[in-house]
């Protein structure tokens, strides 16, 4: 399998994923005011908390980039170190997100409360689901690199993982802006 086909194909896949998120964003935009007597966005979210989440994810994107740079130098130990840090940051992000979800549900503001909360949980949850898939991918990738070293396919997969992870980063920036920042106003 030649490199350019995989790279191009993966970009096309990312664009389709982008459309998927666009549909969820559009739905959120339509439903975000439909609180049905429940709490609106401004009463629910803690911005400092979400800011830490955001910084964790952005840092993990940075370390994923460092892993790719280390792979260019064929430095296996560094690649594995950076990928492990990426993984831990990703887990921390996901943990914080689940924590936020759990406290919302605990306060009686679950996805069943209103159309707004359905849209919120689905949009943010879909991003979290992507992060989970990314973490799973990362584990398999690290195992492959440990066992096989830098073959054509492991390097290719590492590069594709990088694209995926940066893409999720960008989606999160939009979520942070549209859901949390604009929700706080």
């Amino acid at each position: 399998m030649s490199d350019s086909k995989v790279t191009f194909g993966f970009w096309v896949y990312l664009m389709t994923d982008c459309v998927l998120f666009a549909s969820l964003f559009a739905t959120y935009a339509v439903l975000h005011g439909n609180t049905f007597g429940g709490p609106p966005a401004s009463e629910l979210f803690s911005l400092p908390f979400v800011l830490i989440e955001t910084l964790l994810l952005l840092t993990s994107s940075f370390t994923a980039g460092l892993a790719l740079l280390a792979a260019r130098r064929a430095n296996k130990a560094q690649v594995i170190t950076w990928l492990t840090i990426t993984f831990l940051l990703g887990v921390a992000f996901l943990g914080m997100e689940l924590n936020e979800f759990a406290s919302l549900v605990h306060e009686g503001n679950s996805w069943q409360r209103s159309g707004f909360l359905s849209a919120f949980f689905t949009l943010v949850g879909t991003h979290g689901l992507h992060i989970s898939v990314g973490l799973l991918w990362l584990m398999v990738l690290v195992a492959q690199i440990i066992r096989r070293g830098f073959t054509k396919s492991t390097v290719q997969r590492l590069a594709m993982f990088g694209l995926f992870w940066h893409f999720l980063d960008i989606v999160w920036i939009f979520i942070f802006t549209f859901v949390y920042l604009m929700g706080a106003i």
Partner: protein
Amino acid sequence: MNTAINLIAHVGHHHEPFDITAIIMPVMLVATVVVGIIAIILLTIFKRWGWAIGIGKYIWGNWLTSLDPKKIGVMYIIVAVLMLLRGVSDAVMIRAQQALSTGDSSGVLSPDTFQQVFSAHGTIMIFFAAMGLMFGLINLVVPLLIGARDVAFPFLNSVSFWLFAAGAVMFNIPLLVGDFPATGWLAYPPLSGIEYSPGVGVDFWIWTLQIAGVGSLLSGINFLVTIFKMRAPGMTMMKMPVFVWSVLGALVLIAFAFPILTATLAMLSLDRTMGMHFFTSDFGGNPMMYINLIWAWGHPEVYILILPAFGVFSEVVATFSRKRLFGYTSMVWAIWGIVFLSFLVWLHHFFTMGAGADVNAFFGIMTAVIAVPTGVKVFNWLFTMFRGRITLSTPMMWFLGFVATFTVGGMAGVLMSVPAIDFQVHNSLFLVAHFHTMIIGGVLFGLFAGLTYWFPKIFGFRLNERLGKYAFWCWIVGFLTAFIPLYILGFMGATRRLDHYDASMGWQGLFIVAGVGVAIICLGIFFQLLQLGYSIWKRRENADLTGDPWNGRTLEWSVSSPAPEYNFAVIPTVHARDQFWVSKQSSAKPVKPRYTDISVPKNTPMGMFIAAAAFVIGFAIIWHVWIAALVGLIALIVLIIIRSLDEDTEKIITAAEVERIETAFLARKKQGQLA
């Protein structure tokens, strides 16, 4: 509905006592078991187990596990034809019901069954018959048309097919257990919400489409990369055959539209299983959001189906008029005009929603404008025929039938693009007649033309022309007899999906005529099946020895029929549009090619296994058996990881083997040219 035991119990009390599905289900179940037992007994009595296992091994080893896009294409078409027959039987039931159910008669179906039947009809015809035939055709010929040996991701292609097949199987399960949706083919909420559709029908619909839809999306990405990255050297974009351009347009639409479907179905599913409120009528849900989203996918979907059909006609008309296609560049621009505009018209499906005059006017104008690029294409085909040496072969007959019906249906569409008129005919049989004209007269005729045209390239022999023409005449006459009455009934005020109407309406005569039309279409289908059987029987007489039975113009006709597994022994170099035609005209002697080893993907059943895991996940969620869903999910992940670790995925066809195959073809070709 938490356990499999409840699953069985659920069937018993779900329907009204006289419901036909209550009869169909046990009959199907008993029939399946009886046929199985008879087969086992016969095989044992006649000691034919070895023979049966041999056939099984052949099908497994040569077809089910194959990654050859030509074989995957054939499998797509087999599934699609089976689903088409199912969809037709639904159509027969709908027509029978409406022809009979007036006055005191309540027809042959209960209202609930009738709703399930028309919902299943639409779902099956769009997602499995039309999409399946389209993907089948794309798999069969796109690599051949661009001078490629394979698709970009052969394994992904197998996954796509099996997801499609898993969807097809899932949508037939309600024949045995559970029920079909009774909500129409697009399952509008709040009707399709858990409150008004508490059964499993809508869930079956959601998971069928979710699984098949992901398959379509993956296939779309795969062929998009194939067309962009794998064209033969020298084949610039503007030298591609127009079929490839049309497919590319459809693929771009798939990439943009199918994720919307995935998201929309997921939200409906979350409403139903997790108690969310996207589309409910209370708790701040917004049902119109669903209708916007589903048509933001749904309208491009119409063009996903029709564009490849347009492409088929572009090849067929040029070949059988012995002329190059008129207006190649305008054809290409027309395709992209349609692709662009198809995302700006979705609201015309619900002008009556009340979006306001300005919004309706915008979408009305866009809808009318989309007729312009379509008109460009129609004129280009007609100008291609002008002063051509026309051969009235079966594919050409399908084209002529298409051009007449499609133009009329298209004008009905332009008529309805005027919101003021749409308000009069919204949800009427006029609309039903319009879109059947586009889908049958456009999509289906195009796919039939394409299948007849490329059949010899895949199987090595032509289909019988005489029976093909009988089939065509039955289809066109039957189609007009079935749908002209519906246009009229629509104007008389008959709305769609009526299971009963008052005798004083005076509609019954026209409904009976429409029923006769469907009977004639069934005769056409009979001739098509007969044509297939007869052609297989007479395959030696109709064998295509030269690989070029129609005096074709494009690269696929330069290789043997059936095309070898590797498609091209030597990748051709392209200098012109219609490269094969140009080569045939040149007097240059062909040089003896130097063959090299060719690597092709190894067979693997993993695609089937992955789709099976997806099937288990969907089926488990439908019945709320969460443990099974989790098991399916873990299986899916493990299978994908196992496949990703496998680096030994290719096998080599040696140069000597290629030379043997090609020499045999050249000998056959000589024999064919002498005869």
